């Protein structure tokens, strides 16, 4: 199913995603991978590329990569090797990057994304997933006027997974949604934190247009690779811009695929445009050849079984499981699962204590998530733990007080670091006993002859007028109980 568009063309998109693996140390040496350390403090002879230094593969990185590839439904090669990708750049201290060329450790997978509102559902093929080392960072100091470049090699040698998709995406919106799903999956797997600001996830997009012609032929525009997009929103915006730009160019020049070489364009986020990059940056011959300093890696069934055991439920499965187990809608399950594994764990704890999945989901979505969003916090740091929230919800369910009163208590607990019971006690909120309720209702009836007359005359809704007054006399009364008791008393009169 495609998003119906007004445009007279189909957008064809494939993505190349680089994901930094969450290992403690680098891919080929023991240096830490912590982000934000002072420049060139997490380096050693190997990641500095000093003469005589040698790489040794980090097994943990390989395990994480296999876990990711399995979750992406890839075939894992029983035999895989490393290759050198040769090019000169100052942030690449060896003059080559250790990567994988013709025998990647995994290939032929897919990841499906479904729009929860049903706008689209897309199964995107994955051509390959391979492991490689990251380069360092160049910081160009143009401002100083000397055009000096400073190099930080802390990042050099950090393990990266490169994920290459088939050109299966058909709109910028789909691309963004698919990236969200990919990120969610990888975070669920514990494979990467996918933090784009810190460079843990980087995306390049290949895009062109298929334009049906009156004669039945389909004109295809030249493929453009877009780089420098640093958020999923940028990816979507860049693709929207690029599709329109390609259509305009095609209308002017009629240029089609195959007649011009693949072009690389950079996304200029503030300007909202893509710009052509220098041609020479695209036409490198990397002279790949097998890395003689490393031995090939073999993967057996036992290792795959172990990796599968570490996967847990992926988001797509978890959505169904959650909806079935707690009798919540697919939409609710989607919202919860998209918040991440920690929130789902919180939810399941809460739902089990509350006993009603829908009620737990409502509180979580309306109250907890709103608070987290306002505070910019994650569920781990949320001060009201599931047992406390279940306590509060339980009091509402039992009728100690109504939901709006419950929300006031929620806010108090959140503000003061007191328990639910303490807040309830401090506010003088105590369950109103049978006798007190009866006495209060009798008082109300005595004071409101007009309402009593109306009710007797068949207008039961007039009883609502009593509830406001009841709340003034005792804020703890349950409005439902007040209404029920008053109606019974009036009928008995």
């Amino acid at each position, binding site marked *: 199913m495609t998003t119906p568009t007004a445009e007279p063309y189909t957008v064809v998109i494939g993505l190349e995603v680089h994901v930094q693996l969450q290992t403690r140390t680098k891919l080929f040496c023991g240096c830490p991978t912590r982000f934000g350390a002072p420049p060139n403090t997490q380096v050693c002879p190997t990641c500095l590329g000093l003469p005589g*230094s040698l790489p040794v593969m980090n097994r943990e990185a390989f395990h994480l990569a296999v876990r990711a590839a399995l979750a992406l439904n890839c075939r894992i090669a029983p035999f895989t090797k490393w290759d*050198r990708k040769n090019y000169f750049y100052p942030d690449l201290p060896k003059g080559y990057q250790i990567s994988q060329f013709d025998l990647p450790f995994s290939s032929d997978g897919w990841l499906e994304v479904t729009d929860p509102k049903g706008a689209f559902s897309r199964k995107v093929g994955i051509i390959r997933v391979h492991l490689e080392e990251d380069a360092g960072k160049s910081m160009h100091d143009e401002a100083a006027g000397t*055009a000096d470049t400073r190099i930080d090699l802390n990042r050099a040698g950090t393990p990266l997974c490169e994920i290459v998709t088939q050109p299966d995406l058909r709109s910028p919106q789909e691309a963004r949604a698919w990236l969200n799903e990919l990120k969610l999956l990888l975070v669920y797997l514990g494979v990467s934190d996918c933090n784009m600001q810190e460079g843990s996830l980087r995306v390049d997009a290949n895009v062109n247009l298929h334009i049906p012609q009156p004669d039945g032929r389909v004109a295809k525009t030249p493929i453009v690779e877009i780089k420098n997009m640093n958020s999923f929103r940028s990816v979507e915006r860049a693709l929207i811009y690029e599709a329109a730009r390609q259509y305009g160019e095609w209308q002017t020049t009629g240029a089609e695929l195959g007649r011009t070489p693949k072009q690389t364009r950079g996304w200029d986020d503030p300007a909202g445009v893509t710009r052509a990059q220098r041609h020479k940056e695209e036409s490198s011959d990397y002279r790949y050849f097998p890395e*003689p300093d490393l031995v090939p890696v073999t993967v057996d069934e036992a290792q795959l079984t172990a990796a599968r055991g570490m996967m847990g439920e992926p988001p797509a499965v978890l959505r169904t499981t959650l909806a079935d187990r707690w009798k919540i809608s697919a939409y609710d399950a989607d919202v919860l699962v998209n918040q991440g594994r920690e929130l789902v764990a919180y939810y399941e704890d809460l739902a089990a204590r509350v006993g009603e999945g829908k009620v737990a989901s409502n509180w979580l979505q309306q109250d907890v998530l709103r608070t987290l969003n306002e505070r910019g916090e994650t569920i781990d740091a949320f001060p009201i733990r599931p047992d406390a929230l279940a306590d509060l919800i339980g009091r509402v369910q039992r009728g100690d007080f109504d939901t709006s009163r419950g929300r006031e208590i929620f806010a108090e607990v959140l503000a003061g670091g007191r328990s639910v019971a303490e807040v309830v006690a401090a506010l003088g909120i105590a369950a109103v006993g049978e006798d007190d309720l009866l006495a209060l209702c009798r008082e109300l009836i005595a004071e409101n002859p007009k309402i009593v007359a109306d009710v007797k005359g068949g207008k039961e809704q007039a009883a609502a007028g009593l509830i406001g007054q009841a709340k003034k006399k005792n804020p703890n009364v349950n409005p439902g109980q007040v209404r029920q008791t008053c109606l019974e008393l009036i009928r008995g009169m």
Partner: protein
Amino acid sequence: MQPAELSAVELVTAIRQGDLSATQCTEAFLDRIARLDGSLNAFLHVDRAGALATAAAIDARRRDGKPLGPLAGLPVAVKDALCTRDLPTTCASRMLAGFRPPYDADTVARLRAADAVIVGKTNMDEFAMGGSNENSAFGPVKNPWDLARAPGGSSGGSAACVAADMAPVAIGSDTGGSIRQPAGLCGITGLKPTYGRVSRRGLVAFASSLDQIGPMARSAADCALVLEAIAGHDPGDSTSLAAEVPRYTELLEQPLTGLRIGRVRDHYAEGLDPEVRKGVDEAFAVFEAAGATVHDVDLPHAKYGVATYYLIAPCEASSNLARYDGAHYGHRAKLEGGRRSGSESREFDSPLVEMYCRSRGEGFGPEVKRRIMLGTYALSAGYYDAYYAKALKVRRLIRQDYLDAFQKVDLIGGPVSATPAFKLGEKTGDPLAMYLVDLYTVATNLAGVGGISFPCGFTRGGLPVGFQLQGPALAEPLLLRAADRFQRLTDWHTRRPKQIA
């Protein structure tokens, strides 16, 4: 007691027993270096102060009754291709002039742990590329047997310093014959172990899949002593072998009765110097007298060895040497006036590319540049399959030849090189002639097996002739035992060059 006249085994014993102090021993060799190296140029750096400090510390420990390592007090010269912490490591290249690594090569660390005394770094062909030592940026080494001749290469400094008794043992590296060929031309014993037997960590890479570190000494027994100290698995080198290290020194006694030695028919082809042939034939006779039998074997693909080697080695070298770009360490060209503009910069795409080109242009010598260009070309799109991929296929065939041959024989014997030491300058104008000096040695590296070379005679002109034995993977005990037995039956290895005595 003249330390220079003792073998490494005798020196270690004398020092352990207190007949000789480590300081006396070290001083004796340092003095010879000071006296002789002016005419030989075998050393690029002599660490007199460091060596004497190490020796003094060993003597102090011995006085205090503390345990000493198996090489305690033994002076060792190390090829300048191995990283030595805080000592210059240049690979005889202008590119690395003044470079001091922050770490020791695994071999150097093992030598230090065994209480060896590192006396200095030896001259070599630049980045180990060459067979005559004439490619050193710091001048050629002279052959101690004839100062007008080359010592061979690339470990020419290591070979010459042992031949001239400036060190009892030296460390070399062998990518296509760089230990065995100079050992042969200088009349000493040199062992290239099985690929992976000695860790490559800290050996400045030339061709990673071929490089191997090994000992060079005056006898096989001395090589055994050093190999025992430097061999072994290194978790820091993924290609190093996990196999346990035998006690090589204790495996020399067994006689050679029943040993089958192969003689490669192709080794007797055109180009083999008659005097070398005579020495080799006599060596086979010595082995037969010792109880071995000699059998003709074929290595049908060995004739493609040099061609294969000169594709694989330059391909790997072109990548291994990419790191010397002037950006992080080593030689960086001084660009005049910083950023250029207008017509001046037209030759280069950017100041960065200009810095790369000028730094590498100035830092590397002609042979290194030639091999980087060869390798870059052979790995390029459109040529890879015809050159590099095909070379890998031939390499597999050569390896198979060896496996087949070692079904029939235990070791393969023959010449190390076709001629004795040649004159300095004789081959420098003809790179192809120079590449043929590796004719009998490259296949060993391509097959990843071990080989040892040792003197088996002298020419009428007084130049040493070398004999080579090659063995199956991890056959170092047998190689050392056979060479040691030969040396018990002959005295070629005890001869000393008169010119420098």
